[in-house]
């Protein structure tokens, strides 16, 4: 029961954070939507900040969980390309509302805010995965390539909705392939 309640609150909060923004979502709104007493929420999450940090960690876990497992049969370059493409495909989905950690880092720009620190560490996690694959592929400037691919993923998630997300994703994929293929 207890873990159910916690999950329920997280789920409601995640939905509100994603659609309305984090700062715009008050604890009252979460409580009202989840149909619980405020005390219950504070029993599981001591502060709103704690709730946000949990939300980001959950989001990260789910994001990685939803990606197809890397298969050992392919070359590392191919795996790297697949990983970036899988992330770009998520952006093309109609229900995509921006990466949670990017939105959070924009809403909490102060470097000493725990929310900002969490979002930095979540994005760092992605970067180090990219970098690891690039190193396995024997690319000398693996960190540089990882940074560039990371920029492509995040930049695409912010691209202009009016000019078509699908085109942007297709262009981003072409760019990814080119950068991976030409990296030495």
């Amino acid at each position, binding site marked *: 029961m207890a873990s159910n309640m916690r999950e329920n609150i997280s789920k409601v909060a995640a939905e509100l954070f994603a659609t309305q923004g984090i700062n715009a979502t008050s604890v009252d709104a979460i409580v009202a939507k989840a149909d619980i007493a405020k005390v219950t929420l504070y029993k599981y999450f001591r502060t709103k900040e704690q709730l946000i940090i949990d939300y980001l960690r959950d989001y990260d876990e789910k994001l990685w969980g939803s990606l197809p497992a890397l298969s050992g049969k392919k070359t590392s370059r191919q795996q790297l390309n697949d990983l970036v493409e899988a992330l770009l495909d998520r952006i093309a989905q109609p229900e995509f509302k921006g990466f949670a950690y990017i939105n959070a880092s*924009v809403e909490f720009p102060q470097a000493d805010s725990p929310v900002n620190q969490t979002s930095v560490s979540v994005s760092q996690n992605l970067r180090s995965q990219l970098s690891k694959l690039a190193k396995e592929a024997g690319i000398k400037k693996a960190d540089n390539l990882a940074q560039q691919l990371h*920029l492509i993923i*995040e*930049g695409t998630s912010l*691209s*202009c*909705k009016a000019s078509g997300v699908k085109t942007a994703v297709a262009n981003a994929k072409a760019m990814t392939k080119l950068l991976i293929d030409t990296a030495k």
Partner: protein
Amino acid sequence: MNVLDSPWMISMLEKSAKSPKDKLLALFSVLDNWISAPGIREQLGSSLEAAPSILHCCPDLTSYLNGLAKKAGSPSPHTLVSQLLILLQGAIIDELRNPSHESLKAAENAAKAILAAQTRLAWARHWKIAGFSGFSAVTAAVITILLYPHAAPKQSYQAPTPYTLASNQHDQLSPDTVEKVLALQSRIDSGICPAPQLFTMPQDQVAIYMDIVHFRSLEHPAADSRKLREFLNWYAQSRSWECYYRPVNGHTAVSWVRK
């Protein structure tokens, strides 16, 4: 205020370089300079917070960049510009989060790689078209001569022999030569090597060199390729000794000027 889409940004880009390609690349260095000015980072952060869509659409900037990409001879300007903007937006977000990561520099390097690939593609197309039309013209001439031997022009024109035909086919402008010329031009631009004195070299070589540097298509790839190689040899023998490479760290240049 959306700085990216402002007339200020466009005029900065316009001033930043001469060639359309360099103007496209200047997108990153102009922003890099601007973002490190005092107070700008905070301002950009707060405007993002107020309206996360500030980065999303930049109609004026996009149409300006599209124009540049067309002038630079990109085979697909819209794709190129969309890719540059993706890199730019990713870099700005990363720059705000991790100021010390030189994200705009990384984005610029990625953009350079993409532009280089596009240039290669554009050249490949030029060669195909030029090579094909050159070949068909020669074939037509051969047929004409075979059919009407008396009509063959009597001036200095020589009917192509199988040998010249075969060597012509192999004598296409090679990407290596183009890269060498572009590398030389960038050394000249950055002041490392002296600009060749135009009057001392044959006029036809000058014209072809300028065509390459400005990404214009060549009319006679085979002959021009030979002339370019002659030019590069000439430069290597008579001018390259004047190239001055900046001393690497830890070494100092001796100044002969008395202060």
